[in-house]
């Protein structure tokens, strides 16, 4: 029920880039302030600290910092709010949070690292020449 009611309520578009910026920062603050309760809900205190999760949220926002189209920013913000509400309402499970926000970036780097065989030129040449 609360899901439907929330889904209907879409805020109007931001009038200016400055307003959109403000909304994003407000959202970041709300998210930061509920990190302790999120850690509590999902028992994250053994895998992450408040500061780590805060940087993780900031990194997600910074990933889209090059976007200047107001409508796109509003859309991304809406998605962020939705994700945040799902997390706070315990609609997710512990491994979702850990996979996305605790391991997050590091896991992705490891994946792509094994695929393109790291940075070692020696190994790359070796695989090119000796890998039949």
């Amino acid at each position, binding site marked *: 029920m609360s899901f439907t009611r929330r889904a209907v309520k879409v805020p109007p578009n931001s009038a200016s880039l400055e307003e959109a910026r403000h909304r994003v*920062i*407000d959202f*970041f*603050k709300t998210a*930061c*302030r509920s990190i*302790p309760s999120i850690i509590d809900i999902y028992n994250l205190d053994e895998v992450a600290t*408040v*500061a780590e999760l*805060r*940087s993780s949220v*900031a990194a997600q*926002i*910074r990933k889209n*910092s090059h976007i200047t189209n107001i409508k796109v920013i509003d859309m991304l913000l809406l998605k962020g709010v939705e994700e945040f509400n799902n997390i706070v309402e315990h609609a997710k499970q512990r491994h979702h949070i850990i996979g996305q926000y605790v391991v997050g970036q590091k896991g992705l780097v490891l994946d792509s690292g094994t695929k393109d065989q790291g940075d070692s030129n020696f190994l790359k040449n070796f695989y090119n020449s000796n890998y039949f």
Partner: protein
Amino acid sequence: MALRAAILRHVRVPVKTLTLTGRKSQPWGPNGASLRFLSSHGDDHLSKDEVIERVLSVIKSFPKVDPSQVTPDVHFQKDLGLDSLDNVEIVMALEEEFKLEIPDKEADKIDSSNLAIEYIYNHPMAG
């Protein structure tokens, strides 16, 4: 009638003493020292040195900051090369450290460690 007059002549109402004792028993009066026990803050107000030390340690522990560059009057964006989101992140870290909730208007103004120290030192709830 004579009896009444005699009694009235002997009975003295100690007006002054009553008001004095009355005031003493009021803990909320201007002189009531016990008011301080009831408040959750005020007695244990942070000293300036402690505020400076804790604010700087919060900034130093921020992953993007070079700890050797942090001084009590460093500007977050000009001197440390941070962006506005990092600025908000530091303010949130300070909120967590001092158990405050800094309203948006004030939070927007805090862009250097000097201002942060000043704001937190003057905040009655900082703990």
